[in-house]
């Protein structure tokens, strides 16, 4: 358990057949599932990635008395407890059927129902008949929220009318717009990233001939990344902020510091897994990634968390029509004992950006404050922040104009 684990997060890069870290939580699920359900979906749909392009797809169905509208909505989970999230998730049954991703353009009856669920803005009742119910275990993932029991459905029906927000209906009806434009527009209109991810995974966004089911894991990061790119293009046109703004938030054992600096756009994030935290062991493991001007060309070493953490910062700048250089420090403590998905980063940073910022006149004061709130000694992580260093060191040609 080491640096490799921090990069891999359960994806078996070590060559083992099971991840010793995620295996720790298999005991958690304890529900009995009947083979015929008439229950609400939060609404939620899931598309697997194994076997692509022939994948498993279907709804998540809520079988507990937890209010269905919160069980697949991380926007509601911020600031809560890990146990609650696990409780919501173990109470969701995933009903699968095999389908080719291309069928999204011309869906059969069951896939049509899945698309209706994806469109809906609030819970709706579904009826599912299972031919097989899988084992009673919890599955964890670095990107997705944990999943509970799954089974194979032989019949699926929506027994309710989906309530489709007008903005969503229009976006789905637009068969000429590119996914990047449409995701940014949906965000502008106040549709949550989670609903947009649901539409993308169900093959309901983008140019008609390109529409297909997108494995949910990919759809999550695709929405963060494409919407982010669109917002960056806008932000580069805005005036720079003129002070240093420091935002802070902590939940689920994840501490976030976000520093905005008066500078042309850049984004740098450092992830500090403190010693004895989920993916680290005897010593802290630190990973950094960054981008400046232009577009990030290679997939981040930090995985989907990079794009999940970048988006709320861009949303903040875009709403205020301002440009800034941004630095995020994410410190993960041992109290983050189960991997919950990249929404922890997205909602953590989003809530930080909602907090009242501390204002500083210079970068050293702001960094001093961050150092005080991060447990890991600064000598270990601060020197790794090369954009921050460049910001401090880089002079302007105007500094020499009158010299």
């Amino acid at each position, binding site marked *: 358990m080491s640096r490799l684990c921090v990069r891999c997060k359960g994806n078996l890069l070590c060559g083992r057949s099971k991840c010793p870290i995620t295996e720790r939580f298999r005991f958690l699920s304890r529900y009995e599932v009947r083979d015929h359900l008439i229950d609400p979906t939060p609404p939620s749909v899931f598309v697997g990635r194994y076997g692509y392009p022939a994948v498993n797809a279907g709804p998540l169905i809520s079988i507990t008395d937890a209010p269905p509208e919160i069980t697949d909505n991380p926007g509601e989970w911020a600031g809560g407890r890990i146990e609650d999230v696990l409780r919501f998730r173990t109470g969701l049954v995933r009903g699968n059927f095999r389908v080719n991703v291309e069928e999204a353009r011309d869906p059969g009856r069951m896939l049509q129902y899945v698309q209706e669920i994806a469109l809906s803005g609030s819970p709706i009742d579904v009826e599912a008949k299972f031919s097989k119910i899988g084992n009673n275990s919890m599955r964890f993932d670095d990107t997705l929220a944990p999943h509970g029991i799954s089974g194979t459905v032989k019949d699926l029906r929506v027994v309710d009318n989906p309530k489709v927000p007008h903005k969503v209906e229009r976006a789905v009806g637009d068969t000429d717009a590119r996914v990047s434009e449409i995701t940014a527009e949906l965000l502008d209109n106040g549709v949550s990233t989670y609903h947009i991810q649901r539409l993308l995974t169900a093959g309901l966004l983008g140019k008609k001939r390109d529409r297909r089911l997108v494995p949910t894991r990919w759809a999550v990061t695709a929405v963060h990344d494409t919407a982010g790119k669109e917002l960056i293009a806008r932000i580069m046109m805005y005036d720079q902020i003129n002070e240093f703004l420091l935002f802070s938030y902590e939940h689920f054992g994840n501490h976030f510091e976000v520093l905005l600096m008066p500078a042309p756009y850049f984004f740098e994030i450092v992830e500090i897994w403190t010693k004895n935290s989920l993916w680290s062991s005897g010593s802290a493991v630190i990973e950094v990634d960054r981008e*400046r*001007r232009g577009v990030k060309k290679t997939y981040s070493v930090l995985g989907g968390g990079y794009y999940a953490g970048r988006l709320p910062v861009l949303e903040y700048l875009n709403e205020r029509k301002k440009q800034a250089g941004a630095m995020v420090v994410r410190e993960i403590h041992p109290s983050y004992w189960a991997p919950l998905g990249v929404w922890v980063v997205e909602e953590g940073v989003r809530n930080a950006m909602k907090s009242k910022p501390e204002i500083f006149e210079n970068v050293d004061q702001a960094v001093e404050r961050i150092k005080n709130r991060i447990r890991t000694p600064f000598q270990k992580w601060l020197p790794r922040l090369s954009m921050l260093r*460049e910001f401090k060191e*880089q*002079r302007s*040609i105007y500094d*020499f104009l009158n010299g």
Partner: protein
Amino acid sequence: MLDALISAEILRTGVESIITLVPESRFRISENGLTSRAVDPANVAMVSLELKKDAFDSFSATESEAGVDVSKLYEILKMAKKGDTVELLVDEDRGKLEIRFSGLKYSYNLIDPSAIRKEPKVPNLDLPARITMKSEDFKKAIMAGEKISDHVVLRTDEDNFYIEAEGDTDRIVFSLSKAELIDFTPSNARSMFSIDYLKEFVKPISRSEAVTIHLGTDYPARFEFDISGGKGKVEYLLAPRIESE
């Protein structure tokens, strides 16, 4: 107003030198030629391009200023082949830029020059060291430095010129002695620069045989190179990084 014929390669190198920093710039046109100057959005680097009348095969111009989307112009010029001659027409009255080569005619709108950031004054800098070296040597050093760091130190002493990069655990030094340089005015100078900018400069610089660097200590550096044997000239000014502790 400008109506001229020019080798596609010369014009392309000139335009390339600008788009390394900005997508739009102001063309100043006079009887003597065409010049353009721009500063990147971060105010870290400045480019000055000069294409003298001699750089053109035919040249007819009246004093004027035009705002040009240079990144668009560059994309079109990339389609020209070696040896192609380009007809370039800049008509502010009609608000059009037009280029023609090998049967292709492309025209698009000029930008109101007042919508483009005003060009700065060129600072008067006292830069004691002057190094003229082969462009390929410069390119090699920057490409090597980029592999391990995001910044390099340019340094001279009485006998040598050094380009040094330092990563977390590794270090690269590229040095050339007086004899290996094309020309050298020695001095003790040392400044640090962002590789991000230098690697952009390398692209147009490597279209020329040699590059001349003017260097001071914790001071901006000037990089000069010729286009087409001195008929054109590009100057980059790059502000340094200064270590805080």
